[in-house]
């Protein structure tokens, strides 16, 4: 049984698990892990690759037909820097897809909503397919949607923290009112977190640290793949509503209405 495919900016994805490429102990292990994850969209930091070198260690290990590259702008601090980096990435990696990351705070890598909105607007006009990494801020998501981003990528918890859906209440609002796909990015530490996001109705999740830092990254990638599939299938199957309070008071509130 297959879940419905995901469509982002006209491109169809069978896998709803997007992945990152940082923190692995070797490029070969990264490759094996990403293959095991079934991921079809792989984000790569422009700062980590030597785009002029076709033998670059990271890029070389991502040359599989199932992987589409999603360059990201990690490291930039302003909209202006992001737009410049995006153009470089488009030219060098031959894709107009872009994960827009502007986190001027190098400690927690939290995204700057103001610069992100500004950059998104300009990049859309320049013809980019923009997937912005942002706080789980429902209003910001609507504003980004209005300037034409292809999806929104709100965080579940601080990046790399493995804490799960700390922003759950806001993610529910975002999912409930979004007209573009919602990809929960950052903070997912366990397959159960990914399944939870998918059950909520997220269109996809993006995972990196939880795979790269796991004792066995390849096996963990397989676990995440199954969890994302399970969560999505459960969402499509429509979860039974939890029974919150089945108790019936001994003096019913409506008894005054009589039998008829």
């Amino acid at each position, binding site marked *: 049984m297959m879940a419905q495919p995901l469509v982002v900016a006209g491109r169809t994805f069978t896998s709803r698990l997007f992945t990152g490429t*940082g*923190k*692995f*102990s*070797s*490029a070969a292990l990264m490759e094996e892990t990403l293959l095991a994850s079934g991921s079809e969209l792989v984000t790569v930091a*422009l*700062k*980590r*690759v*030597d785009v002029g070198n076709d033998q670059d260690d990271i890029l070389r290990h991502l040359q599989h037909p199932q992987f589409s590259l999603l360059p990201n*702008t990690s*490291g*930039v*601090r*302003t909209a*202006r*820097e992001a737009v*410049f*980096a995006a153009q*470089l990435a488009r030219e060098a990696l031959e894709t107009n897809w872009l994960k827009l990351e502007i986190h*001027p*705070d*190098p*400690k*927690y890598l939290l995204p700057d909503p103001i610069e992100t909105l500004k950059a998104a607007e300009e990049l859309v006009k320049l013809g980019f397919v923009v997937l912005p990494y942002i706080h789980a801020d429902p209003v910001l998501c609507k504003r980004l949607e209005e300037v034409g981003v292809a999806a929104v990528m709100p965080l579940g918890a601080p990046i*790399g923290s*493995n804490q799960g859906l700390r922003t759950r209440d806001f993610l529910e609002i975002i999912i409930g009112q979004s007209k573009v796909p919602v990809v929960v990015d950052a903070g997912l530490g366990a397959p159960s977190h990914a399944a939870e996001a998918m059950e909520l109705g997220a269109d996809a999740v993006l995972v990196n*640290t939880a795979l*790269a*830092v796991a004792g066995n990254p390849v096996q963990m990638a397989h676990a995440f793949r199954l969890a994302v599939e399970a969560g999505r299938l459960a969402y499509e199957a429509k979860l039974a509503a939890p029974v919150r309070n089945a108790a019936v008071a001994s003096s019913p509130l409506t008894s005054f209405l009589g039998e008829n």
Partner: protein
Amino acid sequence: MSFRPVFEAYPWDEVKAGIYAKTAADVERALAAPRRTLDDFQALISPAAAPYLEQMAQLSQHLTRQRFGRTMQLFAPLYLSNECQNICTYCGFSMDNKLRRRTLSSVEILQEAAVLKDWGYEHVLLVTGEANQTVGVEYLRNALRTLRPHFAHLAMEVQPLDQTDYEQLIPEGLNTVLVYQETYHQHDYRKHHPKGRKSNFYYRLDTPDRLGRAGIHKMGLGVLFGLEDWRTDSFFTALHLDYLERTYWQTKYSLSFPRLRPAEGLLQPKVEMTDRELVQLICAYRLLNQEVELSLSTRETPLFRDHVSQLGITTMSAGSKTNPGGYAVEPESLEQFEISDERSPREIAAMLRCQGYEPVWKDWDLALQS
């Protein structure tokens, strides 16, 4: 606004007494805390923490791997000049040290750079003494312009400059500046820096503020171990880092741990810091701050580096030469200090891979810097 009033609120002797008065209970509380304070840090660098070293190392390794993954950033120093108008009692380039002074030309800089490129380096650290007439802002600007087309990341460890100087150099590709206070003990600082611009304690202390105001991407702090009590000096480093992170929140930070090494005709360490103590400090920094980069140079021995690389360190140099022209132009010129780990970058990379770490050569792109 500067660090000075924060610094002056902490008298050296009181801080030192506080650290040495920490107890096992303080250490255990610090180890158990979800987020550690500067007070916890004092406990972790105190003698009372010595029996907890293994626990600290386990925690430090876990926190480091969670944040940085199993990766190690590699860089090489590129010494541009050994001219210096300062007298520093511990340094091979000290003005009163009789040695042939040399400053590399643009052509020579490129010859040196070619060797580092050939080894695979993308991150280089430009190092000089302090000779503002010959190795001033103009010289540094030219060096950055010369190297910019060839490297992804340019850092500098040179004399402290004015804010406007930094503002001129950053657009030339300067990403990172390292400026070590050497010691936060004012009296001893003056003793070890009797002559030259470096003798101005507060100008040096305020350098990170000037860098922060200039909008530098990353700065590195540290003290030279061997001049004063390492625990107290490290507390002040942590205090400085804490202040800087709050004030210049867009800047990244790194810490280094240079231990005084033998150099031509110079002083022996007043206070020896043992290997165990250095490991304790590295772990304590990591337990205080999960995000800060911790850098280890070739001053340390291969055995020490091979082990500590797994306990909290995120950045290492390899194959370093500490003399201007040391890679290609004039390998025999006098070095700033003796290195202990003489293995090539290739050997270091192989060692790291063997330990399950990815050597990272490139983690920046000058295109990201406006």
